[in-house]
């Protein structure tokens, strides 16, 4: 094989440079669909922070108050939504009392969707869990909620909150045992407003934001995190379920392998061209 792939003498590197987009699109499409028809079942090693998150939730006692904020849009469902669904399921299994808020307008609808998909384990709305709704103003909204967590007079569904037993279970932000938030962006606003006020803060974050968040983990300001759909798959493994995220992991392995191969191929071709085809 002399590297010629076409009759007109175009070598594979020139061919790849000319049609790279079309070829890569097709390969990504193929690698994404392949595991759906033929699962590979690649083993899934655990990230230490996924373990830390799991055991933090596992250590909750029935009735412990957990604050959750859904701060992402439906487009990020695969990266964040599945992990949040798994965590919510775990919280209901542990019989924690859950207060749901959102700093993104899409948050309450996503929470509503998740509550419809998981087993609530007999939890009663208003007593064991409540969806308070969206708080506008982003970081100012966070600050307002931190200074007065009882700011909601009505929940997301329009019910008055004054007679809900769960609303009488807390007066200040420190009454919450744990805070779990899911976001796709940098975590600075959440850290500024919540850090030091709630004992345990856990972030469900996009994989690509994790490197920037690590300083907060090392200082303890952020107790732990779940890194996107990979973290969700690890979490499902810890819970002993084979869910949606686990199914994605084969496709993730294959497509990321493609990324590594593309880096090698790009550099091989580039260096060959630079060195004059030697």
């Amino acid at each position, binding site marked *: 094989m002399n590297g010629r792939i076409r009759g007109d003498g175009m070598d594979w590197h020139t061919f790849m440079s000319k049609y*790279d*987009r079309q070829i*890569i*699109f097709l390969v*990504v*499409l193929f690698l994404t669909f392949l595991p759906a028809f033929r699962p590979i079942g*690649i*083993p*899934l*090693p655990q990230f230490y922070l996924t373990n830390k998150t799991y055991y933090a939730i596992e250590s909750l006692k029935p009735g412990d108050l957990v604050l959750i904020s859904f701060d992402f*849009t*439906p*487009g*990020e*469902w*695969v990266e964040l939504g599945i992990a949040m669904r798994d965590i919510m399921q775990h919280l209901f299994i542990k019989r924690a009392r859950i207060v749901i808020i959102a700093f993104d*307008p899409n948050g309450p*609808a996503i929470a*509503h*969707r998740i509550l*419809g998909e998981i087993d609530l384990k007999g939890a009663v709305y208003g007593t064991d869990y409540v969806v308070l709704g969206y*708080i*506008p*103003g*982003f970081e*100012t*909204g966070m*600050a*307002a909620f931190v*200074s*007065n967590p009882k*700011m909601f007079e009505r929940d997301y569904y329009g019910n008055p909150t004054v007679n809900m037993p769960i609303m009488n279970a807390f007066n200040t932000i420190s009454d919450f045992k744990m805070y779990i938030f899911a976001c796709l962006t940098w975590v*600075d606003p959440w850290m500024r407003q919540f850090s030091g006020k709630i004992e345990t803060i856990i972030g469900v974050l996009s*994989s690509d934001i*994790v*490197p*920037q968040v*690590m*300083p907060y983990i*090392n200082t303890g300001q952020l107790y732990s995190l779940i*890194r*996107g759909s*990979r973290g969700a798959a690890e979490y499902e493994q810890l819970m002993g379920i084979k869910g949606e995220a686990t199914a994605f*992991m084969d496709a*993730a*392995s*294959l*497509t*990321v*392998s*493609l*990324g*590594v191969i*593309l*880096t090698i*191929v*790009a*550099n091989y071709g*580039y*260096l060959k061209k630079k060195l004059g085809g030697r």
Partner: protein
Amino acid sequence: MSWVRRREIPLIIFAVTFFISLLQYYLKIPFLAEANTELSNWVLIMSTFALGTGLIALCMYHGKIIMQRRKGYFVSIIFFIAMVMLFSSYYLAPSFADYLYNEIYTPLSIAIICFTAFYNYTAIYRAFRIRNLDAAFFAFAAVFLMMMYAPVFEVVIPQTITVANWILDVPNMGASRGVIIGVALGTIAIAVRVLLGYERAYTG
């Protein structure tokens, strides 16, 4: 100059709100805490109004396109239909609203995000060429971090995770801390500039 156009008024409003928010953090004075809560509530109310004004602006923009029959005006018609359907169904048939949100809006949003994956892989092929030392560091770190997120590499070559963790914990940590401190200092600098009246962009 009319008193409503004077630059001192926005500056005074900024200074008062700034000092209330700042001092309530350090001083345990009930009045300051109450004033800060009240100010936060005002911001929440204004943010809610901003959603309304955003909706009005969207309607005006798309309405204009339809009136003038500009290219792609049918997309604007779809916008109005979708908005009216979702808005009315939340009050008239909540289960239908859930259906619209979960079965139409969510998959469409995911599909749009997924498009970027294809472009990302093309970008990897084009951008990760080691043209100089900087690009070499960039490609080296990127390859190991990619390997970190794909379970297959961790199983086949466990050493990759050691290298990836070192990248995360040492160079990345230092750079990220630098960015965090830089952003904080930049924010303080802007606040001081606004207080001194050098930064006037927010006055319009």
